[in-house]
């Protein structure tokens, strides 16, 4: 889904698409955390999910 490192232009585009206009300084500040988070989220890509459907909440009865 993603790869790192991420350059500033990619961050700008991502923020704009999400509806935010953050300054370059604000984006640079979070760049290491974004890269770390996306590395962590890659763990989800390697899971064999088969036909598992997404959970939206715990089974309440």
């Amino acid at each position, binding site marked *: 889904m993603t790869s790192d490192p991420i350059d500033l232009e990619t961050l700008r585009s991502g923020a704009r698409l999400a509806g935010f206009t953050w300054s370059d300084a*604000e984006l640079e500040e979070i760049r290491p955390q974004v890269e770390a988070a996306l590395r962590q*989220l890659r763990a*989800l*890509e390697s899971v064999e999910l088969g036909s598992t459907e997404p959970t939206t909440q715990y089974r309440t009865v």
Partner: protein
Amino acid sequence: MQDLVWAPMTELARMIATKAVSPVEVVRAHLDRIAALDGSLRAFITVCGDAALETAKAAEGRLMAGGALGPLHGVPYALKDLYDTAGVRTTGGSRIFADRVPTSDATVVRRLAEAGAILLGKLNMVEFAYGPEGLNPHYGHARNPWDAAAHRMAGGSSSGSGVAVATGLAPGALGSDTGGSIRIPASLCGITGLKPTYGRVSRAGVLPLAWSMDHVGPMTRTVADSALMLGVLAGYDPADASTSVLPVPDYLAALTGKIHGLRVGVLGPYFLTGATPAVRAAVEAAAQTLATAGAIVDEVKLERVSLAAAGSLAVVAAEALAYHAELLRTRAAEYDPEVARRLRLSAFVGGVHYVRAQQVRALVREEVDAALAHRDVLLAPATPIVAPTLDERQVALGDGPSDVRAALLRFTRPFNFSGHPACAVPCGFTEGGLPIGMQLVGRPFDEATVLRAADAFQRLTDFHTRRPVA
């Protein structure tokens, strides 16, 4: 008066009902202690002193008139400051909501009032509950009371709840738990904290962090007090579609002290190996204590549980940003900079991440269910570490270095992800006198067994009776 602030809620309720003590005396004792200590502890954001005394006088009047009494009649408590309270500001620990005054009570606040409980005030917390360390630059960092020499983290996000209960400023409190925010401060502050099953307690009128991960629950000094509070809190609420229609059992009646034959699975790799040596030793000793009392103890390995970190990140980030998007566009400068950074990061979590996380969530839930198919409860450390100092950024865990934030969340968030009930209780102290917490995890909607096991442990040990230095 000193005894009143250390009395359990069960005992206060009994003493008030039998007229051994007046609700006014009980409330005044706690308000006096808050006035004396909270300047340094910073557990409270708002103290409702006058209102609490007025309510206590009314409660005394009803008592003397011989009217029907609720199970918490005249017993004081405090609320993490994200529960809506009619006429009393609810800040969410944020400057942005500093003047936000709800016009109605959260469902659980109303239920506590109907049970006769008296609100002392609103408690400090991490801004918008987004963080496990317990820090708040707007209202001051709540101080962990177990170390007079160093300022240690209280744990969060329910930091004020942990500190207030540990120091006798309140006999019980409500916290909320999205990744461990009840159990982490309970562990670091040496008290009991219960995260019920998702759907057991209404979240209506509670500021959300992440709707599908948020849980409401009690924080008390004894398990019996958490059982008493849960009996009042639990049950279907038409205002919260996620709540269950299952009947609410008598949780206090479940506390038999009997655990002979109780099947306890100790969570091994990931949990025990990830803990620091002192925490691991304390949890292993706790397992031995339960075994000596007749429990059948074995070790369990959960293969998928480590995925809860990535899964929780995706779910919490996406849901939190959905709630905060507009405020982040218009009032970003007023957030705690650390919370603002976490929210900005969320913009880069995609829809595919979120859905895959929800698929993984189903697998993790199935695995925890399977571990509980032939066991009654699972046992694990609540946190791998004891309370860090404010300037600690990295800690050495049993399986390598970790940043403090990830370490604090590591053992608790799998059960927010899965939705299972989990109760944290103190199970030891370090040589330096800092509390160590463990958690007992149970089957969905079987809080009664979790509480029975935790209460039995407290009957066998005295860790929950020790008092901090503050």
